């Protein structure tokens, strides 16, 4: 009985000990455990797998994936960060830049601005193609000159009052349609996601006149192409009290965990601790600093329950990003399957 429980624990919990983490790797491969059916079974996977959406806001999405393995969950996370394509400024043609910001710094900053353009409408640029066609390039123009304000008060020192256009924001970038883009995208409005990104500061007489080409790229090439502010996951915490904990010990226990995790109930006049919501815990392992409590609690994580948190930069909504990431993984598999088939044909 105890042995059975031990294997259960080894199979589906990652245990956080005082000085290390145990049972980290997945061990449920066929042949490891006698009596367990571990071979891959699509039907069993489909029965056990579920996705629960917890919270969705404009740019963030928090959802749970239950019944999947670390390798695949990590693959989705890696693809979200580095392989979902977006459009970003790649080439900056500087016609005039008399500002304090150097050309290359200005170009670097322009590249990092997220552009609200659906990358699925565009193609990748062919390698070696310097010009860019209308199917793979978006052209933006930034033309701004700073002037002195003749109506300003004599002694004012507020730059907003003294000068016109002294702050260059991303809202000053305008889309210049190439070729037949006006027909291809009649009601599209390509602009940076945020209007208030400060690009440079100017003083009277300085001007910036640049033309920018946006291309489609992936985060692996340059981080400016990454569509997520961040995409991360954590495993669902699982706190078990090995013995009933009462009175003062219960109070200390409640303080050891994040608020809301442990609640104290009054049973028969005594205060008894109970695990209310393990999900909220951030596992600071404060329990292990208390000699009396550290052997009464088991801190673990559920091995196949992933709490994903995806925050998009605003180019695409986060649920679209997750769908695209899954499709990209499918595309990779398909590519190798095609290769295999074409090689074995010969």
């Amino acid at each position: 009985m105890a042995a059975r429980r031990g294997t259960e624990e080894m199979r589906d919990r990652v245990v956080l000990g005082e000085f290390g983490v145990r049972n980290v790797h997945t061990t449920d491969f066929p042949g490891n455990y006698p009596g367990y059916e571990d071979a891959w079974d699509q039907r069993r996977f489909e029965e056990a797998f579920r996705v629960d959406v917890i919270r969705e806001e404009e740019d963030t999405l928090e959802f749970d994936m239950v019944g999947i393995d670390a390798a695949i969950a990590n693959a989705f996370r890696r693809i979200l960060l580095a392989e979902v394509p977006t459009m970003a400024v790649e080439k900056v043609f500087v016609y005039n830049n008399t500002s304090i910001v150097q050309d290359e710094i200005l170009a670097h900053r322009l590249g990092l601005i997220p552009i609200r353009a659906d990358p699925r409408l565009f193609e990748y640029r062919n390698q070696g193609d310097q010009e860019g066609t209308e199917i793979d390039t978006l052209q933006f123009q930034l033309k701004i000159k700073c002037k002195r304000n003749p109506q300003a008060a004599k002694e004012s020192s507020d730059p907003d009052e003294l000068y016109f256009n002294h702050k260059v924001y991303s809202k000053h970038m305008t889309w210049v349609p190439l070729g037949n883009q006006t027909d291809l995208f009649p009601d599209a409005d390509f602009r940076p996601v945020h209007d208030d990104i400060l690009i440079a500061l100017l003083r009277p007489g300085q001007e910036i006149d640049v033309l920018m080409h946006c291309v489609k790229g992936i985060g692996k090439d340059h981080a400016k192409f990454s569509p997520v502010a961040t995409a991360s996951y954590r495993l669902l915490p699982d706190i078990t009290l090995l013995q009933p904990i009462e009175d003062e010990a219960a109070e200390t226990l409640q303080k050891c965990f994040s608020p809301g995790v442990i609640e104290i109930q009054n049973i028969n006049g005594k205060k008894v601790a109970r695990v209310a919501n393990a999900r909220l815990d951030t596992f600071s392992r404060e329990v292990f600093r208390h000699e009396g409590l550290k052997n009464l609690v088991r801190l673990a994580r559920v091995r196949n329950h992933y709490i994903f948190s995806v925050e998009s930069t605003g180019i695409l909504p986060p649920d679209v990003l997750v769908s695209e990431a899954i499709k990209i993984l499918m595309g990779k598999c398909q590519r190798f399957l095609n290769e295999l088939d074409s090689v074995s044909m010969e």
Partner: protein
Amino acid sequence: IQADGTDGDCVTFVLHDEDHTLGNSLRYMVMKNPDVEFCGYCITHPSESKINFRIQTRGALPAVEPFRKGLNDLMGVCQHVLNTFETSMKEFRAQK
């Protein structure tokens, strides 16, 4: 984008332009196959983006078979995950 290794049932595939993203998930799917005796992958050098993926099968099964099955299974998993995710999103939005 791939080349084969040695004979019959122990083969090392060299997958170009790949890294842990596909390597680890494919390794997991191939390990779930009871005919596979050994499956592993490694990245030869972090500057080059290619992985060595080795499969050794029990018995006389040619090693390409578990590779193909692993890829198909992974596609099946992704398809199911995609469907479940989109259904859950729709339900979540409907009941909001």
